[in-house]
């Protein structure tokens, strides 16, 4: 089997393969152009007669559970990333697979983290064929060097759900690490020694996988309430000593920035949203977990407080800052997709207005609508943007894969998408002629805010009009690029071979770009 085949130019002008890992692919056709028909994928029929009537599905250990689940060559194994860098289960799964001599697995995580570095040896020896999910840091480098046996596939959180729902990815075994569970398989993330908030990224896996294993270190008698994951989907429950490392579950990027330069960008962003009339009584926003985004939330809350306004909802990534707003009455609801700190976890347990959501409700392409498009403004990051407002969030300017897509692509459908980013990072310009990897077409990026100027997408004539008399430095995107190059110099391009090592999926499952092997 060829890793990939039959390259064509897609609607974004990128050469992409139409066959990857033996599966036929649809090249990107434009936003909202690819509308599949037919019926959704359905999992096998299960019958309660095959499960213990006393509801006790516990199995001695993970190895036994994987054997019972029928682990064999070529299967697709899924995990979630709610434990972030504190995940210990994914590594154990592949240790067991290696021990059993199983080969050629597809790992389908909702995201990977530096803690998964030990998996490189299994990528090398063929236990794992490829990762379909985010590839960060060392795994990203491994993939960019062309060392992964299969072609990597990067999807957004919504795209992952879409791929599960339309059958593009069929999960054989889903392993769901859960901070608390009962013997029936009901599970929750909001309590227990390794509490991580919610388990939304594992929801689709539980509903559609052939076999579902819940792993916990806090087994409670039935019923486990709340049951974020329903035991009715679960085959086996395994109790371990430690399901995750709580101290690493909390992300390092969830503190407000102290950097004066980033605060300046945050301040400019808040002022922009205020002057553009986006901040108003009853508005909604989503800000990521980065320091700049969090600071923008604080500026928003100051504006709300000063005017006696209240936001209707915040889409999160929650942590202590939105929680504080909720508890001070500055927002009615937090619609939470993943919890970044212990305050967020506490709030999810205690506050009625702190709602547990999933990629299905928030981002999914195959839903009858989703929340992302209803948000007034979304604040996102990017590694690069280009003069056509196209953006890159997965690779570094030197060509190496660096980040996953996360919910980033899905969030672009909000009413206004703002990227507050520094004009350059350690001499590396962020605004370029052409992004190294295309993750989003420019028509979805509305505003780019840098410390040296703000560029509004010419398509957004309404915003341009509203900002006509602002004191903020409004410039063109070409001005920004010229300014960056004046300071840093014109950067050379990284050198790539023709070999495709990974592809980037658009939210609808089509291929928007291909990542090529870096020549070192």
């Amino acid at each position, binding site marked *: 089997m060829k890793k990939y085949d039959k390259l064509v130019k897609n609607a974004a002008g990128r050469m992409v393969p139409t066959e990857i890992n033996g599966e036929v692919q649809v090249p990107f056709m434009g936003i909202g152009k690819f509308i599949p028909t037919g019926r959704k994928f359905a999992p096998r029929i299960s019958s309660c007669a095959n499960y213990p009537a006393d509801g006790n599905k516990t199995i001695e250990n993970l190895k036994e559970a994987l054997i019972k689940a029928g682990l064999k060559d070529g299967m697709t194994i899924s995990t979630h990333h709610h434990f972030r860098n504190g995940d210990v289960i994914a590594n154990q799964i592949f240790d067991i697979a290696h021990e059993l001599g199983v080969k050629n697995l597809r790992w389908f995580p909702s995201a990977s983290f530096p803690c998964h570095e030990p998996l490189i040896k299994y990528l090398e020896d063929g236990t794992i064929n490829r990762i379909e999910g985010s590839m960060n840091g060392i795994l990203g480098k491994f993939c960019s060097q062309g060392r992964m046996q299969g072609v990597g596939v990067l999807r957004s959180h919504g795209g992952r759900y879409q791929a599960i729902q339309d059958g593009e990815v069929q999960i054989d075994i889903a392993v769901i690490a859960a901070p608390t569970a009962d013997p029936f398989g009901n599970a929750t993330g909001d309590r227990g020694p390794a509490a991580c908030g919610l388990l939304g990224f594992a929801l689709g896996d539980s509903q559609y996988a052939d076999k579902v294993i819940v792993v916990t270190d806090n087994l409670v008698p039935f019923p486990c309430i709340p049951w974020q994951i329903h035991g009715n989907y679960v085959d086996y429950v395994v109790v371990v000593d430690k399901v995750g490392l709580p101290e690493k579950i909390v992300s390092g990027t969830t503190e407000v920035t102290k950097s004066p330069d980033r605060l300046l960008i945050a301040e400019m962003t808040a002022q922009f949203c205020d002057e553009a009339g986006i901040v108003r009584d009853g508005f909604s926003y989503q800000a990521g977990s980065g320091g700049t985004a969090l600071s923008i939330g604080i500026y928003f809350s100051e504006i709300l407080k000063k005017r006696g306004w209240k936001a209707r909802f915040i889409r999160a990534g929650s942590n202590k800052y939105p929680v504080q707003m909720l508890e001070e009455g500055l927002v009615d609801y937090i619609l939470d997709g993943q919890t970044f700190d212990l305050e967020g976890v506490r709030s999810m347990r205690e506050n009625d207005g702190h709602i547990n959501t999933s990629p299905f409700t928030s981002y999914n392409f195959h839903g009858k609508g989703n929340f992302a498009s209803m948000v007034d403004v979304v604040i996102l990051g990017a590694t690069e943007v280009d003069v056509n407002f196209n953006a890159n969030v997965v690779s570094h*300017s030197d060509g190496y894969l660096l980040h996953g897509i996360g919910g980033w692509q899905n969030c672009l459908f909000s009413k206004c998408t703002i990227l507050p980013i520094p004009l350059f990072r*350690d*001499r590396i310009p962020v605004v370029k002629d052409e992004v190294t990897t295309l993750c989003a077409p420019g028509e979805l990026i509305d505003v780019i805010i840098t410390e040296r100027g703000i560029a509004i997408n010419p398509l957004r004539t309404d915003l341009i009009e509203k900002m006509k008399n602002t004191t903020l430095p409004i410039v063109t995107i070409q001005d920004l690029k010229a300014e960056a190059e004046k300071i840093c110099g014109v950067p050379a391009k990284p050198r790539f071979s023709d070999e495709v090592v990974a592809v980037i999926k658009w939210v609808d499952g089509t291929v928007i770009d291909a990542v090529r092997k870096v020549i070192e």
Partner: protein
Amino acid sequence: MGKIATAGNKGKRVRSDCFVSFELTENEGIELRLESKVKTLYGKDIEQLALDVLKFFDIKNCILEIDDSGALPYVQTARIEAAIKLLVETDKNFLFDVFEENKFETRKDQNRFSRLYLPGNTPSLMINAGLHKPNGLILDLEDAVAFDKKHEARFMVRNALRNLNFYGAEKMVRINQVPKGLEDLDFLVPHGVNLILVPKCESADQIKQVNDRIAQIHAELKISRPIWLMPIIESALGVIKSYEIASASDNVVALAIGLEDYTADLGVKRTAAGTESFFARTQVVNAAKAAGIQAIDSVFSDVGDMEGLKQNVITSKSLGFDGMGCIHPRQIKVIHDNFAPDATEIDKAKKIVNAFIIATEQGLGVVSLGTKMIDAPVVKRAQKTINLAISVGLLNPTWREEMLAEQV
């Protein structure tokens, strides 16, 4: 093995800088070794620039190692030149053209609410400093630079004066204490510095020495442009001599006080209330005003305490200070907001100045507002408030027309 000269910084936390190590060799030929975080994007540029510098200094046999953390070109050349000049005697200077944006001069009486201190040898902190809009940016060669880094810092500061965009902030440098500080002037005077801070100043003679050296450099290079001085009073003796210093020369535009050293000199602890330095501060204000120049207060060192800073500024303004130093960009706005005249002050000043203009137009010898007579110094102060309000954007320059129009 020859002697190895080094300059710059490297390490995990170092950004926007580079470390160079330079060794002259017996064998013909240049051996250039580059490690860089941005090698893919700028590796060729960095190597070419290094070769250009070596060629400029006529160096044909050497080993030059560069460990780069994303240094901008003017930082890279400052580091290489500093290392070369430790081993090679030369009068030449490797300079890029001065940025157009930096070719501005400043006025003696211009607004100096805030001046932001930046360590003179830390380029990463310089790059965005001007964007925070302080009135002045100080590249510090004195206390913020370690003793063994003094040499390389001069090249860094020189290049920054030319090629770091100050975004309109007054280009200031704090030199080392006189007489050592006189050696710094060669790196500043020809390169566009607007104002020089003279630390630990204790006599008019020190000001004279600085001015003599500036004049000498100007004469040698056949240039002449205004360079202002801001002596810093940091000792008991300095406080006693403050008027002598403030009036030492026409180009002394402000007198600053440095309280860390002053309280150390007194042998007391610096407190938040500042009772121990009350005499010194009022003395410095008096000396400055007597000489007709600005009085500038010491820095507030708790960068996390914005409320404390605000109270400090309010006290400072009430004592007669015209501005203060800052050590973090987030302090700038608090300083500006609280040194600037408030709405009541502006309103009152408008009425007084308006009454004065009307009285002058009508040829009246006495200015009155309502039933109150107004003395000339009050008018002068009101005019100063108006000028300040206009300069910081709190008042329209056409305020009087607007005021008259409203009255109609």
